[in-house]
């Protein structure tokens, strides 16, 4: 591999500082940035709402008791199928359980699965892309053909096939969803790595005799990671949808665990008479996915473009 690195480019002694960003020629000071923030957000109410929604969802995921102190699995049968009201914000389900409490407590299960899914995709996909982009040649060819195959199978179908092999459960759903989006990450990571690999500071590092793995770790990875992290936030929204789809189909945690997807599935039989059983968890998923997407758009250079 060292040979491969030496072959690239001619040594350059201009000595660009390793790891420094080229995108922002004059980085603004902390005070300047703080002054810009209110105006930036004032023009983007959508972003503010999105941030608040994501904040609420995060609180629900890590401390559900703060938002909904009740037990999500216990209801009063006499109060079943009550419409949304002051006592039950999201109404009650077919066993008299409070739908709001169930949605809040379901957030931790659904988000746990989503985080695992994105982490699997990010780590596995990122490493594959880094390897393919950095090593090139037949390694790149081989890995990218595998990625081609993965991309040619619809993600949800691939997840279903994996679930069939792995079995049911929240973690298994998460792994299935994660593996299905490995290909996207590998592609983006590879493209970024190939771009960075040819940049001057990498050549400089190589010319001073830095070992290949140090170059990869210190110079290539940090600079190639940006777009992949934005993709991760974007994928986060998609993974919530995918995890919910699989839990809707009954592959998630066993009842009475209130996963978001299974909450919607439970409400299907009551659509005609009790709309809130499906609508409330459905709107929650929609709001979360839209918010995450809005935030990922903001992260993708909106700040630097908005000057």
């Amino acid at each position, binding site marked *: 591999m060292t040979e491969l690195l030496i072959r690239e480019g001619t040594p350059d002694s201009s000595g660009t500082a390793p790891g420094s960003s080229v995108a922002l020629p004059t980085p603004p000071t902390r005070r300047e940035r703080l002054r810009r923030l209110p105006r930036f957000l004032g023009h983007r109410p959508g972003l503010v709402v999105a941030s608040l929604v994501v904040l609420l969802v995060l609180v629900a995921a890590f401390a559900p008791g703060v938002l909904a102190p009740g037990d999500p699995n216990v209801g009063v049968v006499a109060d079943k199928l009550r419409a949304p009201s002051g006592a039950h914000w999201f109404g009650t389900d077919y*066993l008299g359980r409070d739908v709001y409490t169930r949605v809040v407590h379901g957030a931790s299960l659904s988000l746990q699965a989503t985080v695992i899914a994105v982490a699997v995709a990010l780590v596995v996909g990122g490493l594959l892309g880094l390897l393919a982009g950095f090593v090139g040649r037949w390694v790149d060819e081989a890995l990218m053909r595998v990625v081609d195959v993965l991309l040619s199978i619809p993600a949800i179908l691939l997840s279903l096939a994996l679930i069939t092999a792995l079995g049911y459960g929240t973690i298994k759903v998460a792994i299935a969803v994660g593996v299905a989006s490995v290909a996207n990450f590998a592609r983006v990571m590879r493209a970024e790595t190939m771009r960075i690999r040819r940049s001057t500071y990498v050549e400089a590092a190589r010319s001073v005799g830095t070992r290949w793995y140090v170059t990869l770790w210190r110079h290539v990875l940090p600079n190639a990671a940006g777009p992949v992290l934005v993709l991760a936030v974007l994928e986060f929204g998609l993974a919530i949808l995918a995890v919910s789809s699989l839990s809707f189909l009954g592959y998630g945690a066993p009842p009475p665990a209130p996963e978001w997807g299974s909450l919607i599935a439970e409400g299907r039989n009551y659509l005609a*008479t009790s709309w809130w059983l499906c609508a409330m968890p459905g709107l929650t998923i929609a709001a979360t996915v839209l918010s995450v997407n809005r935030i990922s758009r903001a992260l993708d250079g909106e700040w630097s473009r908005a000057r």
Partner: protein
Amino acid sequence: MTVRPRGLLLPALLSAAAVVLAACGGSAGGTAGGDAGPPRAGGTLRFAVGSDAGCVDPQQVGSNDTIYSVRQLVDSLTDQDPQTGEIEPWLATSWQTSPDAKSYTFTLREGVTFSDGTPLDANAVKANFDRIPEIGARGTLPKGYLAGYAGTTVTSPTQFTVSFQQPNVQFLQATSTHSLGILSPASVAKSDDDRCAGVIGSGPFTLQNYVKNASITLAKRPGYAWGSSLFAHQGEAYLDTVEFRIVPESGVRTGSLQSGEVDAIGSIGQQDEAPLTGAGAQLLARSNPGVVFGIAFNQSKPIVSDPAVRRALLTAVNRDEIVGGVFPSQTKPATSVLASTTPSYADQELTFDPARSATTLDAAGWTAGPDGIRVKDGQRLTIPVTYSPVAATNKPALELLQQQAKAVGIDLQVQEVPIAQASQLQAAGDFSALWYNVTRADPDILRGQFSTAGANLFRLPDGPLQALLTAQAAEPDPAKRTAIVGQAQQELLTEGVFVPVSELTTVLGVGAGVHGVTFDASSRIQLHDAWKSDAR
């Protein structure tokens, strides 16, 4: 004994009896339609059901939603009157039972053919019965009916004798079920899986098309002239085609019936009753005989092998709350292992007594742990309960049961398995506890389910129960048999073999223009007499 078809008297009798019996607590066979005029031939009946068993062989299907369609494909040797429980002629015009109940001689009706043209004679019946003991896990029902089968002797094309190694009094009723419906010898010879894709019978309808998890389409059998003596009319069925559609959401089924997209729907949820009656649909209901909905335990597994745990669960169930909260309004809470419509049923006065459950568990050494779940020798009182989604009520009922069990410190964990895998899983004993029910209009279903001599699905040990189950199967005197069955029901509860929860009431929603949909003795439907006012 030779009985001839009763001709024109029957339609009047049936509808009159249905009205009378519907008034006596919904245990009657229901007929739809009042003054709709004379029946009209023609048209397509579109029937939405909730699930598909993945198989259309009547001998291998045990799920009601699929039995509705496959019942129409085959005829049975006999039929059972839903009101009296009497066995009546169908393919067999007469029969004799030997005094020791070990052999049965049937005389077949002449001129009956399968839809592939081959005659339905004694040899065809023999081929069916010879094959049934070899069917795999899906065929638990007919295999149980033929337990101890010694062979069939054909004496003439229309006469044969079925013999058993031991007395088998339930066999006559079994011949009236769809499970012992007669298939053509060509279908019998196929493998189990091939038969699941489609079979040929002699019934009033033939299988036109089967798309897994989507639809089962039946077409009228031209020239059908051998209907059961209980049918309202003889000759061909009125409907040209019957289309069963698989629609898993009960809300969508209800909406389809309201909008006229379908003509009839199965598995009505409690929440759908008011919208349906408001839209002018008729609700037909009949309580299913057999083993009620409840939990049976695999006694070879740890925790549930402890009788104290099983008995504690028995008194921890608040049946009224579950039935009132989840099941259709016509449903009754279980009062025994057998449903109240089963012959020889005996009320066991099941009580809801969580304090007694707590005492039972305390005495057996199960003490409350930090999170309320009881613990013994470091082992949590966790019972995984397996179910398959054959009815929309299964999941809510189990979730409520889970809440009730938690109140006495039992952690029930609910696990869903697909319908198509359920029978394999049961046969393999790969479960701790099973939520299920079985429909059968004969108390011998207890032997089929709980005898150690058969499949022994629940890995029961030997005990006083076994002698009772064997004795009732050999007792030709109905009064004595009822007494033995009563003891068996009591013994099942004393040992905590089964935790009864709710009876199953079959509720169908039928559009205003549909008439003559009748329940048979097992609360499954017979569509030979069904017809539509607008015949489209």
